[in-house]
């Protein structure tokens, strides 16, 4: 039975919301047309996971957050995500739907780098945002969730790196859903102009174990010719938040987009990560680590689509499933006709730790060109009792042995994550989740 979605938010609400934030006219129109589409478009259909009954509409849409005067005043569970020894100067903390703390290195600002919340960006850099906002990356009308996102987008970040600017220090954003019922309908837009490079790291954090809400996230990364974007994320929504996350990359000629995604949400999650290798000799590299526990259901689709010649796509995903959790891993490498000498490689591995846990890895190669190379590997298995026996026979208790095996299983991905801070955060979060 399909649940009829009647949104508590109508045209009038959306218009008022847009006015309140002094949005440009085109944005208001985009929202209103998306709202209309959301009523008729079909629901997203992730392969092998039925999400018809998941909560994507019951939440608080507009919740302010207190401004943060000093990082020292942050609660420890947020500070955990800051790098105590080597904290980047470039930091934005979004608390509920408010940009509560924003800081950017002065030199970068002088070079024209933009690192600001989406509402400010829509006011101060409207033309730039307009050019890339749901134009090249994610389309409004892909399905009901993208339309809902466009209609009700209430927070997010805009990053713009001008031509030739190389940013050494990462840009870090913490999206903190402090309110139990607040919904992050978050839009992250990263535009890297020709010959530029940037490392962007984000964390989603909430603590609503009981209260139900939903997050609807669209991320668009545009890497122009010869630009390099390294995108790291540790998602850490609590059990009460149902998550739809769509991360999309568009790579131009000689461009490179690296995704390092620690998908550590505790609630039901649909994650779609698609990279379009449009330019010749472009490269996409996605590494995903997942730990599922409790009764959560998750679906991860990683898709790299080759249009450009000699484009390289690498997908590596490792997931550990505990308790009664289940997850589907779809890996898709698609090489279009004309993308000669392209290379699509993927590997998905799932380890199940209990008899009630479920994991499924589906490698898919769709190739419409002869002169290419491609490869895939996939495995789904349980912890080998003989491995446990071997480790325990050296005096290592079972729990510790399992911990070592899990870390060992995830290490090949974690160790390759391009950003040290993400690696450390992820190791910590994994440590918390495996016990």
């Amino acid at each position: 039975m399909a649940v009829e979605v009647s949104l508590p938010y109508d045209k009038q609400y959306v218009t008022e919301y847009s006015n309140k934030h002094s949005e440009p006219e085109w944005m208001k129109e985009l929202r209103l047309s998306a709202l209309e589409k959301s009523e008729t478009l079909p629901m997203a259909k992730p392969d092998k996971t039925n999400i018809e009954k998941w909560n994507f509409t019951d939440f608080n849409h507009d919740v302010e957050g207190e401004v943060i005067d000093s990082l020292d005043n942050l609660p420890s569970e947020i500070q955990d995500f800051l790098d105590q020894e080597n904290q980047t100067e470039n930091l934005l903390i979004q608390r509920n739907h408010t940009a509560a703390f924003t800081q950017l290195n002065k030199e970068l600002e002088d070079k024209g780098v933009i690192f600001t919340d989406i509402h400010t960006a829509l006011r101060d850099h409207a033309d730039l945002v307009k050019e890339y906002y749901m134009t090249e990356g994610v389309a409004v009308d892909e399905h009901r969730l993208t339309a809902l996102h466009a209609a009700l987008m209430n927070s997010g970040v805009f990053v713009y790196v001008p031509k030739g600017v190389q940013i050494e220090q990462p840009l870090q954003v913490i999206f903190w859903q402090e309110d139990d019922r607040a919904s992050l309908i978050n839009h992250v837009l990263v535009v890297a102009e020709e010959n530029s490079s940037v490392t962007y790291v984000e964390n989603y954090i909430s603590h609503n174990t009981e209260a139900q809400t939903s997050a609807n996230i669209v991320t668009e990364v545009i890497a122009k010719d010869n630009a390099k974007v390294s995108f790291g994320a540790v998602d850490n929504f609590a059990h009460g938040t149902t998550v739809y996350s769509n991360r999309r990359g568009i790579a131009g000629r000689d461009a490179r987009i690296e995704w390092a995604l620690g998908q550590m949400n505790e609630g039901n999650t649909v994650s779609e990560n698609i990279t379009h290798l449009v330019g010749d000799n472009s490269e996409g590299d996605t590494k995903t680590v997942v730990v599922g526990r409790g009764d959560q259901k998750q679906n991860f689709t990683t898709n790299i689509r080759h249009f450009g010649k000699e484009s390289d796509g690498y997908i590596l995903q490792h997931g550990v499933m505990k308790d009664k959790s289940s997850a589907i891993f779809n890996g898709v490498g698609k090489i279009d006709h004309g993308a000669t000498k392209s290379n699509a490689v993927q590997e998905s591995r799932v380890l199940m730790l209990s008899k009630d846990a479920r994991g499924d890895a589906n490698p898919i190669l769709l190739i419409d060109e002869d002169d290419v190379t491609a490869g895939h590997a996939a495995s789904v298995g349980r912890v080998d009792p003989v491995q446990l026996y071997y480790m325990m026979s050296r005096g290592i208790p079972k729990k510790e042995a399992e911990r070592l095996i899990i870390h060992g299983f995830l290490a090949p991905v974690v160790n390759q994550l391009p950003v040290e801070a993400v690696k450390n955060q992820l190791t910590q979060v994994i440590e918390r989740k495996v016990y």
Partner: protein
Amino acid sequence: MAGSTLEIKDLHVEIEGQEILKGVNLTINGGEFHAVMGPNGTGKSTLASAIMGHPKYEVTQGEVLLDGENVLEMEVDERAQAGLFLAMQYPSEISGVTNSDFLRSAINSRREEGDEISLMKFIKEMDAKMDTLEIDKNMAQRYLNEGFSGGEKKRNEILQLMTIQPDIAILDEIDSGLDIDALKVVAKGINEMRDDAFGCLIITHYQRLLDYITPDKVHVMMQGRVVKSGGPELAKRLEEEGYDWIKEELGIEDETIGSK
């Protein structure tokens, strides 16, 4: 008497419903090296695995006492913490866990909380023992047994033995697949362990390991039992004459498990 005592009493073991061990009795005291010999398929490795607690083996009768405590009632890790060690014939490969992290966890599991071995001391000890065993230093940072050759795995088992320093060790066919040079190195490591407190049970079906490690006692297994025990001279005679004379003496036609 120095060291620990391992007593195996009337041990019966099944695997998937088939009885493999049919009443094994053996006592190993600290300071003693015992060799258990016998043709293939007579239950030697089953004895080793059952004592350590391999999940596939089911003990149906008898007991195994370490200083009077029944180890069969302990979890596998507790058996190790009590002082038992098994060098395995087929060590598991564990991806993502480095040899050195594994070894340190193992050493610390036998120590009290707060009394963990310091990293410096650990590295120093491990390095010294790797030198003895002529192990390439980069093996410390490789994943546990992953992609190791047969010989490397065997050396790694002995490296673990030497760093963990158990009271009683069982070595299950530690010589199989080793060339003569590797065999000498492994034997050197094992001989270094010899002292008044350390007891060792060496399982092999070749005499040649015993050219380098002299056992105090030699036992022959057939049909899931110890059928003959003696001193080092027994091993010598087996080397020269094989097992047939024992079979003849005891009226055994088929020495393997399935036979009556």
